[in-house]
């Protein structure tokens, strides 16, 4: 349940189904790499006479990457990722080796996108994309939220930001910029 009233010091977790989704997407991504590596390595060995002493360690690296991506990393990522909505700010933390925490003042939000990839649709998940007027990090994605939660968070943030509809010079309607 996403409410602003939640304790400011506890991070809320993503929906647990995201672990299954990341396992599948990781399996596809690293699987393609692994089989591409197997095929390419065999070709190199047979036709270009590259020593197996080079090819086999490369295969081992790809295979362990496959194992990591499918067995271990999705769960670890899920545990490392969290978000919280405090009074006046939204915080998103993520990362295993390089851990990051991004704090966005809610009053700085320009607009919020709700994205749903095919996999997310299958698992009933959604990604929120929070946009500010920043330059190097103008948007922050929050993946793996339960659909309903994502919509509720969006409503909450919009209400908290009181994004007054403002007509910009080009005629479109956008949030308030200061």
């Amino acid at each position, binding site marked *: 349940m996403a409410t602003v009233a939640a304790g400011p010091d506890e991070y809320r977790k993503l929906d647990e189904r995201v672990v299954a989704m990341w396992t599948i997407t990781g399996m596809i991504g690293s699987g393609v790499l692994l089989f591409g590596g197997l095929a390419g390595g065999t070709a190199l060995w047979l036709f270009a006479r590259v020593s197996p002493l080079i090819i086999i360690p490369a295969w081992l690296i790809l295979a362990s990457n496959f194992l990591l991506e499918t067995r271990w990393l999705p769960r670890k990522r899920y545990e490392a990722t969290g978000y919280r909505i405090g*009074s*006046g700010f939204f915080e998103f933390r993520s990362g295993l080796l390089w851990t990051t*925490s991004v704090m966005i*003042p809610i009053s700085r939000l320009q607009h919020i996108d709700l994205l749903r990839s095919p996999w997310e649709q299958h698992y009933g998940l959604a990604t929120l994309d929070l946009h500010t*007027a920043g330059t*190097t*990090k103008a948007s922050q994605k929050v993946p793996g939220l339960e659909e309903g939660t994502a919509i509720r968070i969006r409503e909450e943030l919009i209400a908290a930001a009181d994004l007054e509809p403002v007509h910009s*010079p080009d005629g479109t309607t956008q949030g308030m910029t200061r």
Partner: protein
Amino acid sequence: MSDLSRTWERLHSTTLWLPALARLPQIAMLAVVIAVWAGVPTGLKIAFWFVFLPATVFNVLRFLTFEFELTASEIFIREGLLWRHERRIPFSRVQDVKIQQGVVHRMFGLAKVEITTAGSEQREVSLDVITRDRAEELRRAITRQDDRRVAGVPDSVEPVGTTLARLTLPQLLLGAATSRMAATLAALIGVILYFKMALFLGSTFVGEHFQDFDKYSKWGESFIPFRGTALEPFIRFFWDDTLGKSVVFILFGFSFSLVRYIVRYGRYQLTQTGDVLTKTHGILRLGSSSLARRRVQALKVEEGLLRRWFGLCDVWVDSGGDRAKVDDAKKREPFVPVMDAAQAYSLVGDVLNHLDDPQPAWERVSPKAVMRGTRVLWLILAGLMIMNAVPFGWFTLVFLPGFPLAYFLNVKWYRNRGYWIDDHYLISRRGWFNRETLYLPIHVVQNVSLTQSPFDRRLGLATLAVDTAGQTNTGGGTAIRNLPLEEARRLQWLLTLGAGTAPQRAARLQSVMPKSNCSN
């Protein structure tokens, strides 16, 4: 949307030819380049048919289809040949106004106006050409808007401008000579030109003029010291033909950039009228741009190596309209091209509202930064030594002095790194050779991120990065590395909550804002 009662106004009739004339140097350059390869008539023909004619047709069409109307609080634009486009830009949305006058513009009392808003990546509107009076009127209307909103200046009062800064000729000359452009570009252009020219010119019709460069380098030789002594072969070893020519080119490039700098920034003047800052500069082309103080997103004082030597610096400012990143190859435009450092810091105090001290008692990052940076350099040096030991043997010992030097540099960098946060600003300073001091108004911060690498975690440190809306001229928000984790979290917290503090939200946040323990 279209309102028939409006009194639409066209651009000045010189729009038909003046903008094309302003492009003349580029057109001429193109013609010359083509002429070198294909002869003068072809060059002229190509420049006429492919550049001058399309530009003129474009300008004629624009004159016929572009209309605008000024009111007291907004500007309406109607343009387009097939797709008609109508825009309304309230002056309250305008970030800055630029008025430019080329030589011909000035002869006829004309000007080109550019308006930037926060919504667009580039300039929002360009009125090219209108009369100078109309341009001033537009600027006054926009800046008065800012005055009314901020300072509460009533319409009837004409605000008086005060001059904040001006450049004298000696300052300009010193500035030109110490500008990074002058130093690096001249050298680079000199070397590159030399090799390019040596390769190409010998085989083209310019070949015979190439003799002149030989002549100049012969002339340069007369300055060689110790001529006719035993030292001469030694000197000649360095002053060979190639080097002589390069030096001639470098001197040429240097004086060119000197002249360019003076033509560009001559007659520089910075004035403040109410809340609005206006800078004017240029000897041939007069440029003038206005920016409200409250729209400043970031301000940076840069003291380059040469400038720091002479106690000089330059100042850069971004408004919300400067959306492009620096690496988008957009031209940076200085706010003050050159200035005494002491004078600049007092100017910063004038320009930025609520700034207590432009050079506060700096807080330092964690002292672990010193050994951390040193270790990285030592690793690189050790790698270099091993790599060179294999082919060159004992020669590799020349890297040894690098080890204490690496430590020394890191100590210097650590001592010159500082930051300061109060209720209104985050200030950060860094650099020992080149020093830059960045002022970020906290209320414009867009988001704040805190990152820890695996090494950071072991040392209990973190990197804080601040993102702002305008970054074209200043390079944007700062990243402070090697902060103790607790301190980094405190800064992140203060910056985030402060950013949300628009005037009307101040009261609400007062209750959740932790007591700042660094306010003076």
